[in-house]
């Protein structure tokens, strides 16, 4: 019934990747001069810009927490980011949930008790969406937070995974995402060895589920080294600038 051959007989996916292969990742920190920390991240054709402001004084008094800072996440997806123009870009439930999920994830990882009575803002702008928006946003946020010098327990590395005809696949793109394949997002803390976020849609048998989560976790570990390289490169650049 398959309208589209998602895995070729040779075992290659629609964009030529092997099942357990991540998409090409390019990222850069310090891309915005105004923000305290920023990052631009491309994961395949998904392109995300993240900016971090703070810790600073909370804009709303009522939100102040006396013993820690709180994180506010604003997520915006450009109307031209996907195939069809999106009419409602802000405030729809999907975007709100995404922002809420990211906030919850980072509130547990950022050492918020260092900055009582303050607020940390994370702004996320999706420029191009080709599947895996949530993991890309989390990775970009991690980069931007590190870039802003905000202390965290660990990198939060995120990766999506799915399953096509019982073959677990890593880092799914838009075509795979919209093909009724299950969509699992894992965010992992590699040093601690714990899962920070797990989200899944559509049906997946328990036996396959274990394999998919394991694959996603492996993807996250691989993602960590990539993010680490990006951070180090950014830092090196800064050092070079200072030396000049």
């Amino acid at each position: 019934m398959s309208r589209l051959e998602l895995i070729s007989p040779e075992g290659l996916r629609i964009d030529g990747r092997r099942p357990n292969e991540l998409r090409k990742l390019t990222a850069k920190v310090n891309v915005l001069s105004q923000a305290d920390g920023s990052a631009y991240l491309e994961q395949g054709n998904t392109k995300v810009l993240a900016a971090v402001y703070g810790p600073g004084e909370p804009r709303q008094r009522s939100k102040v927490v006396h013993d820690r800072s709180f994180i506010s996440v604003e997520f915006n997806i450009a109307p031209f980011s996907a195939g069809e123009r999106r009419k409602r870009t802000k405030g729809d439930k999907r975007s709100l949930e995404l922002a809420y999920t990211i906030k919850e994830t980072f509130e547990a990882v950022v050492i918020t008790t260092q900055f009582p009575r303050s607020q940390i803002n994370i702004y996320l702008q999706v420029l191009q969406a080709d599947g895996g928006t949530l993991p890309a946003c989390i990775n970009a946020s991690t980069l931007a937070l590190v870039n802003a010098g905000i202390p965290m327990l660990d990198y939060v590395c995120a990766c999506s995974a799915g399953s096509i005809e019982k073959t677990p696949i890593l880092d799914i793109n838009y075509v795979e995402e919209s093909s009724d394949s299950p969509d699992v997002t894992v965010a992992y803390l590699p040093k601690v060895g714990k899962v920070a976020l797990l989200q899944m849609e559509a049906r997946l048998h328990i036996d396959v589920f274990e394999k998919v989560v394991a694959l996603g976790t492996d993807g996250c570990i691989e993602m960590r080294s990539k993010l680490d390289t990006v951070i180090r490169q950014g830092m090196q650049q800064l050092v070079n600038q200072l030396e000049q």
Partner: protein
Amino acid sequence: MQVSTNEREFVLEALRSGIRVDGRKPLGLRTVDIDIGADYGHVNVRLGKTQAMVQVMAEIVAPYPDRPTEGQVIIHSELSPMATRNESIKSAETELTINRMLERIIRKSRAIETEGLCIVAGHKVWRIVINIHFLDNDGNLLDAACIGVMAALLHFRRPDVTVIGQEVTVHTIEERNPVALSINHVPICVSFAFLDDGQHPVLDPTLLEEQLCEGDMMIAVNAHREICAIQKAGGLGMETSQLMLCTTVALEKGQEITEMIQKALAEAKTKML
């Protein structure tokens, strides 16, 4: 309302010795009471003191242009002040989580066969409207809602229709036996809360436990041993082994709950006869 330090310590200390304040084991479920109403698709669910009412309705509408042969499923699950009096601040986030999870559990996992709801392709399809009203909140609204929705969907009958060309005749329930929905599978949601630095997972948390927890996880499963949706965010991370333990427990409890729903439906059927 804030939980006092003494109350918190009491709950945690009890949990450390393997028991919960209401006498349950950490992975125990509260009493589930599924009350199936006289009308098709009307179900009242009690999960301990938590109470939700579900009403399923069907109406004829024009299909979405990009899906001319598919019926529609709409879920209304707004929190009314009836259920949110004690936690007014967090209620917007609770509502969002419940809303999105139900969308995933019911719609994304394709619990209802939507192609079977088509009447005249491109012109008329059935729209199934699921209304969820939370009447009383003692924690774990989502699981109660999910049980209610699945029981109501299984119980619901839509009027029969005859199609001649483009003409559609809707037969009242008195004229012709109404038609059951075709349900692909029965997803059941099982929620966990993690207390005491994430060391103690508790199943089916009460409102008090929800207020004390650092993280939560919601798993929807079905009888085919499939995971239909998972949401876990916030709180300290969780080891993969613990995660797998939770899914296993969820599968087991899901099975139990499915049987309860079947039993309640069977009882309702005999009562009608």
